[in-house]
């Protein structure tokens, strides 16, 4: 009885769409006429004839490769910095976390202005410093790194989890290390890092999923809002959206988009499973009391 509302909601908004999208993945469905069963044609098209699929896979993987390590390194560095006992550390933590609570679309739109090659702040700063300017979001090679920069703007969420992990490390371990004459670097790599490694694994998984599902930044930042220039910032998520909800005047390809959703789902499952499988190699698993 008490479970009914939750069960109904879960069935209506999770289970039913899941099975429905699995069915659509095997059909051609444009939202205007009834779905037509085509078996595995959508998957065949995806892997063989669709000129945008492999570039979107490449763009997604590039985003993962660039974003995940940087977010972990910067997030951890900020957490270490914010874990010091010093005046104003509360304000510093607040400043680091502030971008996370700001409206996402508004901040991304502001970044679009910053990166405008003609009148943007980024190029103006480079110009003042007598450094070569960049095409940023308009350049084939610079578009994805620019998007990664914007995604790193919200690294405060990574920082806050690392900060909690750092504060859980027993202080007596640090004191013992200091008595043994260990330097800061040794303490960090021999004590801090092993003890927060389970959290590191969690963060790797979370950041990978974030990168694999990146949508807002490429959608808003790309010059044509469709992952341009060319396919350079067209992530899988953006590809799915554009096939399902194309620009005005184009017909939806819900069937094909559903097939892409399932491919993305399988990719995420494989990535998480692989991360979990190999995590034991470099995770310190003794319980910290």
């Amino acid at each position, binding site marked *: 009885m008490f479970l009914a509302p939750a069960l109904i909601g879960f069935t209506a908004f999770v289970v039913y769409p899941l099975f429905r999208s699995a069915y659509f993945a095997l059909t051609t469905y444009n939202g205007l006429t009834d779905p037509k069963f085509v078996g595995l044609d959508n998957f065949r098209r995806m892997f063989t004839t669709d000129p945008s699929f492999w570039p979107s896979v490449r763009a997604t993987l590039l985003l993962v490769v660039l974003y995940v390590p940087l977010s972990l390194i910067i997030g951890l560095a900020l957490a270490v910095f914010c874990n010091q006992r010093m005046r104003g550390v509360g304000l510093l933590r607040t400043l680091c976390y502030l971008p996370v609570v700001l409206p996402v679309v508004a901040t991304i739109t502001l970044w679009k202005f910053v990166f405008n090659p003609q009148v943007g702040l980024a190029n103006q700063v480079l110009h003042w410093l007598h450094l070569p300017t960049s095409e940023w979001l308009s350049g*084939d090679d610079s578009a994805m790194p620019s998007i990664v920069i914007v995604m790193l703007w919200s690294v405060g969420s990574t920082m806050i989890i690392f900060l909690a992990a750092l504060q859980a490390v027993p202080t007596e371990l640090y004191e013992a290390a200091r008595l043994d004459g260990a330097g800061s670097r040794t303490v960090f790599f021999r004590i801090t890092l092993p003890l927060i490694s389970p959290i590191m694994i969690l963060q790797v998984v979370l950041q990978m999923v974030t990168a694999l599902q990146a949508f807002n930044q490429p959608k808003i930042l790309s010059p044509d809002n469709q992952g341009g*220039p060319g396919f350079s910032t067209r992530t899988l998520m953006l590809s799915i959206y554009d096939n399902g909800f194309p620009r005005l005047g*184009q017909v939806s390809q819900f069937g094909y988009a559903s097939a892409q959703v399932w491919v993305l789902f399988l990719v995420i499952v494989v990535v998480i499973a692989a991360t979990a499988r190999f995590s034991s190699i470099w995770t310190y698993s003794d319980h910290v009391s």
Partner: protein
Amino acid sequence: MKRWIRCAAVLLSAGGLLATAACGGSSGKQSDGKVTVTLMTWESAATNKAIDQALTGFHDPNITVRRVDTPNGNYSDKLAALTQAKKLPDLFWCGNDTEQQYTSQGLLTDWASRLSDSSDFGASSFVSSTMKNWKTADGKIGGVPSLLNTYGIWYDIDAFKAAGITVPAAGWTWDQMFDAAAKLHAKGAKYGLVADALTSTDGPFSLSTYALSAGGKPFADNVHQPTKTTIDSTYTEGVGKVVAGIKSGAIAPPGYDISNQQGLFAAGQIPMLWSGQWLAAGFLTDKPKIKYGFAPLPQVTKPATLYDAVGICTPSYTQNADATFKVLKYLDSTVWTKVLPDSPVAAPAYLSSQSAYFGALDKAGQTTVAATVKAGLNTPTTIGVRFTTQWASQSNDLITAYWPDILNGKKPLSDLQTMTDKINDVIKNNS
């Protein structure tokens, strides 16, 4: 058991309430016997306000017009949702592509018989090319064209003077445009010409105007029911000139961010801009400091231009076609005569309403805009701006895979043929 049944009933009732609350409106009879005709536009808040104001002049004791609010940025999403839910309003703004696709699926009311019967609102009352383009292959007209876009080149008069170049005018050539772009670039402009229409996915269609003007074949034989895409020698020649212009820095490359191109043009940072007549309305409001003009698209030997019209469509399940058609007629004729004088955004397709648009341009001193729009409307050789077919997004992906790289010189011109071969495969698979 009883409690379970009661709970289930409550939940079902709540669900039912939610479902009906989410419904849009379609024409229906009110309790007083009046018919309500619903309307949805993609216009800005200001234009919607002007339309609402103009609609107060619609007097019919049996009809009430109600506009459904839509955030204009999300129009396509809302349209898709309402289409699937079969909750489209009686009248909704649509592009030629939407009209063609929806009509072919039997989703729209066919106005063909009414438009041929009506004396003052028949097919002949509209710019002839638009009615031709809004007819489907089997002669249906699922929507009525409302406004026409005319494409041309906006130019900064002072920049041209400073570079010692004659300002563009009707009859100017593509070579003159490329030459001007190079000189303007040499004079300090980041790019002499910004032409997203040439470098985006619509590029192959826009460049057809070069081939057509030179007596060659357009990229697509028809944008509504294409049988093939073609790349001939004149077309390749035109692409080659654009490639050279991009390489030299005279023309903005693919990927150039056009989000604030209007502002940059008004600020004197873009000396030549390929765009549409709709910028004029914004310039009248913002009053740029530069002196500017609007010229027709360049030609090789004869004028050729792009065709692009938007209109108003009606779903097949509208409950009162007579009332809806009355409102449609008023919208497409009278409303524009009241809205366009304050915001001359485009020429109406309905011939009798055009004087309001051109009058507004003349009054504002926009003589080059008026002349270019008239020239565009009277150019017999035209090509649609993009495919209007169900599979258009598939061909767009192929264009994206080849076109920008060809223009940037990363792929050879011979890849134009590869691109068209692949698009022809898509056409064949979908025909």
